[in-house]
C-alpha cells in the first residue's frame, strides 16, 4: 500500500500523540512530534521520527498556538496535521488555517465544527434531521417566567444560552426554585457573555450516556461503527467506557445508529466524529451533541469492530474511500476501557502531582495499553492528567469484566494517587458487573470512596515490615541528615539511587 502521506505532524502530546504516531508508523508515514519546554524529554517526542519545539510550557503558548504549530509543520515539511483530541482538535479556525497553507487537516471539515460545535446550533441541526432532542426553551432577558416551562416539567436545568460546556448549570427540582435559578443564571450570563438569554432544558435522570462512532470518507461513504456506553463519569468527564453498550435492546441500538447517520448526513462531514445521546430507563433517547474529532474512548470501538479508526482518519484525509468491510464491520465481543488519571478518587478526584515511581502495566491476552508516561516520569501540572488508557477485549461482557479485574490486579502505579483505586473498586460493584448503571454511579455509589478494609491495612503493614527487613537502611547517612530532610528535600530518584547503591554493597 502506498502511504497516504509522506509526513504528518501530530499537534498533541502524551498518550494520544503516541497513539497517532503508531498508526503513522504502521501506514509508512513519517511522524513529527511537537513539544513545549515542559515536554523536551517526554515519551511522545521519542515515539516519533522527528520533533519540533513549539514554545513555552503554558498550552496557550505552545499546543494551542496555531502560529507555532503551522510554523513547525512548515519547518518539518509535513503534508498533514493530526490534532488528536483536546487542544485545537475542535477549532474550526485551526482547521481552516491548516487548509489555507495548503496542508491537510486530519479531521472533519470546519463547516461540520461550525454546524455542530455550538450547542444550540447542534440542536437545530438535530431537530431538522428528525432526531429527538431534550425538550428545551430559550428565555430572553425580558421574559420573566415563560408559561411553557411547565410543559417541560421538572427536574430541569437552567444555564446561560451563550457559551458551552457544563459551566454554570443549575438544577431546578420544582417551581418554587425556578425564579431564583433564572435570576442567578441571568446574572451570570450577563457577566460572562453580556447576554442575559438563558436556556432551560429537561433534566433526563437517571440516564445513560451512549454515543455512536462515525467514520466518513470525502466521497460521502459513511461507516456507523456502533455505540459505546460512557456513563461512568465524574464532573461530567468520562472515566470508563465500553462497547457495545450493555443491556440495550436491538431496536434502541439500531435507532441510535440511524439517528447518528441522519445527523452526519445533515452537515458536510468526513473523517471521524461521535454523536452523543442520553438514554433513559425506558430507552427513550435524546441527542446531546456531536464531537467533531477523535474521542479518548475510540479504542473500545476499534477492538470490537476491528477497524483502526486513527489509520482510517489518515487514509480518508488523503482521499481514500471506505471499503465495504469498514462501512459494514462485523462486531465481535466486548471491550472496556478505564482511564488512568493522576487524580485522587478519595479527595473528589482532585488532580495529583509527582513523579511516577512504579509503572507496572497489565499484559497478556486481550489487553491493550495506550500510555504516554513511564517510570521516572515527572508529571507536568500544566496539562491534562491522563496518564494512560487500559483496554480489555473478550468474547462477551462477563468475560471482559473478569479480564479487566485480572488486568487491574496486574497494574501497579505509585508516586501519586491515580484513578486505578476507583477502577479496582468498580469491577467488584454489582451495578457494574451486571451492566446496570447510569451517570449517577460516581456521585451516588462512590461518593468519597470506601474506607480502608482490614485486609488493606494488614497488607500495607506487612509490605512495610517486609520492605524494612529486605532493604538495608543507609543508617549512618540517615542519622547524620538533619531532621526532616529526607522525603521532601530529596528527589525520589536520588533516594532510589542511594538505596540501590547500598544494595549493591
Amino acid at each position, binding site marked *: 500500500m502506498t502511504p497516504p502521506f509522506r509526513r504528518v505532524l501530530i499537534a498533541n502530546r502524551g498518550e494520544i500523540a503516541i497513539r497517532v504516531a503508531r498508526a503513522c508508523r504502521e501506514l509508512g508515514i513519517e511522524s513529527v512530534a511537537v513539544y513545549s519546554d515542559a515536554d523536551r524529554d517526554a515519551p511522545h517526542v521519542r515515539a516519533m521520527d522527528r520533533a519540533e519545539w513549539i514554545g513555552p510550557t503554558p498550552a496557550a503558548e505552545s499546543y494551542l498556538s496555531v502560529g507555532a504549530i503551522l510554523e513547525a509543520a512548515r519547518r518539518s515539511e509535513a503534508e498533514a496535521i493530526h490534532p488528536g483530541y483536546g487542544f485545537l482538535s475542535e477549532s474550526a479556525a485551526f482547521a481552516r488555517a491548516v487548509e489555507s497553507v495548503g496542508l491537510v487537516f486530519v479531521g472533519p471539515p470546519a463547516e461540520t465544527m461550525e454546524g455542530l460545535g455550538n450547542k444550540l446550533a447542534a440542536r437545530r441541526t438535530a431537530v431538522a434531521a428528525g432526531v429527538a432532542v431534550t425538550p428545551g426553551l430559550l428565555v430572553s432577558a425580558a421574559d420573566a417566567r415563560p408559561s411553557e416551562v411547565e410543559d417541560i416539567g421538572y427536574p430541569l436545568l437552567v444555564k446561560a444560552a451563550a457559551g458551552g460546556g457544563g459551566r454554570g448549570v443549575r438544577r431546578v427540582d420544582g417551581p418554587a426554585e425556578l425564579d431564583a435559578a433564572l435570576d442567578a443564571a441571568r446574572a451570570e450570563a450577563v457577566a460572562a457573555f453580556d447576554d442575559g438569554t438563558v436556556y432551560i432544558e429537561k433534566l433526563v435522570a437517571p440516564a445513560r450516556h451512549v454515543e455512536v462512532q462515525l467514520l466518513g470518507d470525502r466521497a460521502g461513504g459513511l461507516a456507523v461503527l456502533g455505540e459505546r456506553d460512557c456513563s461512568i463519569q465524574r464532573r461530567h468527564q468520562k472515566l470508563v467506557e465500553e462497547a457495545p453498550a450493555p443491556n440495550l435492546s436491538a431496536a434502541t441500538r439500531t435507532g441510535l445508529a440511524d439517528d447518528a447517520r441522519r445527523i452526519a448526513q445533515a452537515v458536510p462531514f468526513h473523517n471521524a466524529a461521535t454523536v452523543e445521546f442520553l438514554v433513559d430507563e425506558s430507552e427513550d433517547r435524546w441527542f446531546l451533541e456531536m464531537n467533531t474529532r477523535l474521542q479518548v474512548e475510540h479504542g473500545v470501538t476499534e477492538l470490537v469492530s476491528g477497524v483502526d479508526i486513527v489509520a482510517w482518519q489518515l487514509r480518508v484525509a488523503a482521499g481514500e474511500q471506505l471499503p465495504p468491510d469498514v462501512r459494514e464491520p462485523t462486531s465481535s465481543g466486548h471491550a472496556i476501557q478505564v482511564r488512568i488519571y493522576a487524580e*485522587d478518587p*478519595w*479527595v473528589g478526584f*482532585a488532580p*495529583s*502531582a*509527582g*513523579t511516577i*515511581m*512504579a*509503572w*507496572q502495566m497489565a499484559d497478556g491476552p486481550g489487553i491493550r495499553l495506550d500510555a504516554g508516561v513511564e517510570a521516572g516520569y*515527572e*508529571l507536568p*501540572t500544566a496539562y491534562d492528567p491522563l496518564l494512560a488508557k487500559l483496554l480489555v477485549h473478550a468474547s462477551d461482557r462477563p468475560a471482559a469484566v473478569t479480564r479487566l479485574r485480572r488486568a487491574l*490486579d*496486574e*497494574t*501497579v*502505579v*505509585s508516586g*501519586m*494517587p*491515580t484513578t*486505578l*483505586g*476507583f*477502577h*479496582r*473498586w468498580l469491577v467488584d460493584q454489582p451495578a457494574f458487573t451486571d451492566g446496570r448503571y447510569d451517570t449517577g454511579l460516581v456521585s451516588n455509589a462512590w461518593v468519597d470512596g470506601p474506607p*480502608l478494609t482490614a485486609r*488493606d*491495612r*494488614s*497488607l*500495607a*503493614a*506487612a*509490605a*512495610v*515490615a*517486609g*520492605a*524494612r527487613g*529486605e*532493604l538495608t*537502611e543507609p543508617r549512618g547517612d*540517615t542519622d547524620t541528615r*538533619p*531532621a*526532616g530532610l*529526607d*522525603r*521532601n*528535600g530529596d528527589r525520589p530518584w536520588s*533516594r*532510589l539511587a542511594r*538505596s*540501590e547503591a547500598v*544494595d549493591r554493597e
Partner: protein
Amino acid sequence: MSDEIEILIEGEKVGPADGWSLAWVDHHQRVAILRRGPDREVVAVEGSGGEWVVTVRGRPIAVNVRSHRDRLLAESGRLAARHGGPAEVRATLPGLVVRVDAALGDEVAAGDPLVTIEAMKMQNEIRAPRNGRVVAIEVVLGQAITGGALLVRLADPEP
C-alpha cells in the same frame, strides 16, 4: 536492630506481619508481591525511615513506622507544641511550589505567608499557624508536592 517498632495507619496501630510473605517483583520500582495462603496482592512500597506509602489495589496508603525512641520524641514534641514548641506546616493539597515566601531564620507572625502552592490552577498561600522562627524549609521552588507534604518547620520565636 533490637528497637521495637510500631506500625501506624490512619493513626491506628496495625500488627506487622499477619502471615504475609513478601517477594520483590521489581526491586528498582519497589513493586512486591505479598502472599498469604491462596491470597495474593501486588503492591508498591515507597518510603524509608518513619514515612511510607504502600499502594494497595490502586490506593496509596500512608504508613508510619515509629520506634520506641520516636515515640518518646513524639510525646515530648506534643508537650512542646502545647507550649508553643516546634510546629510542622504541611500542604493541604498536591500541587506545585510557585513561591517560597519565607527564608530560613525568619521570624514570622501567625498568618504570614510561608509558601505558595499552585493546585488546580489556583494559588494558595500556606500561612504560619502561629508566631515562630523558620528553622527548616523542606521544599524548593518548582517542586511538585503531594498533599500532606511537610513544607516548613517553625520553632519558638527568639525571646
